[in-house]
């Protein structure tokens, strides 16, 4: 079985530096959560805009087709 290397080897020994790292990763975690949420909101907003445009286009197409007949 492949063992997972002990990450403690790579962590800084200095207590203050470790505490800073702790805060940095907390902010990274919260930032990642907001980034994912924000990205999704942007994506569904763009999708909504695209769907509205498409709906208008298809409506006009159907109206012009029925007017021609």
């Amino acid at each position: 079985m492949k063992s997972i290397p002990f990450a403690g080897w790579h962590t800084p020994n200095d207590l203050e530096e470790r505490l800073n790292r702790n805060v940095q990763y907390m902010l990274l975690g919260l930032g990642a959560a907001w980034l994912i949420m924000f990205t999704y909101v942007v994506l569904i907003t763009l999708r909504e805009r695209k769907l509205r445009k498409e709906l208008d286009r298809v409506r006009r197409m159907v109206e012009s087709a029925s007017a021609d007949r």
Partner: protein
Amino acid sequence: MREKIIIGLAIFAGGLLAWNMNTIFTALPDELNQGAIYRIIYFHVPANILGMLGFGLGMLLSIGYLVTKDLRYDALAASVTEVSLVFASIGLATGSIWARIIWGVWWAWDVRLTSWLVCWLIFGGYLMLRRAIDEPIQRARFAAVVSVLGSVNAYISYMSIKWWNTQHPQPVLTIRDGGGMAPGMEAPIYWNLLALACFSAILVMVRMRQESFAREIDTLRRMAHAQ
């Protein structure tokens, strides 16, 4: 009416989240063993709860579709599942960042993490499947089956920390017989859960509106081809 509900929910959820973030960052002390990083739990746990509940709700709606053949169930199932996948992504990302500090690794192949990743992949596949099939009835039927299978996996993931010894922590919330947190530290989890549940309700409503647009476009196209 729907717009007013969305705006009302957004104001409520935004206010609640702002107040709760203030509590989390200014009133609560660092956790004794973990330090500041423990605050990730305030997003990690609510996001995963909403992900699991959403997948379960999606399964019930999918069964509703299979029983009634009403495409509105399918549209709601797709909306709920997509939003739940976003919350599951937040859960996976925040958990991984927390693990890097506490466990020393970004990822461990233990039962909880692996089953939740598999669940995420299944529901990612669910959304890809929906895009790949144009015929609405066939799409709804296949998607419903995938949703049911994925939700069984979500339940296994939920129970995995009780059924097996995992590297992932055992339940800490009192509602799951955990009781591993001080009451003052536990309450903000529920407030964040409420705020994020309101956000997810907003997102589901927006997605439902898009589903109805897509249905209308489909119907108009069929009309245009029939003329």
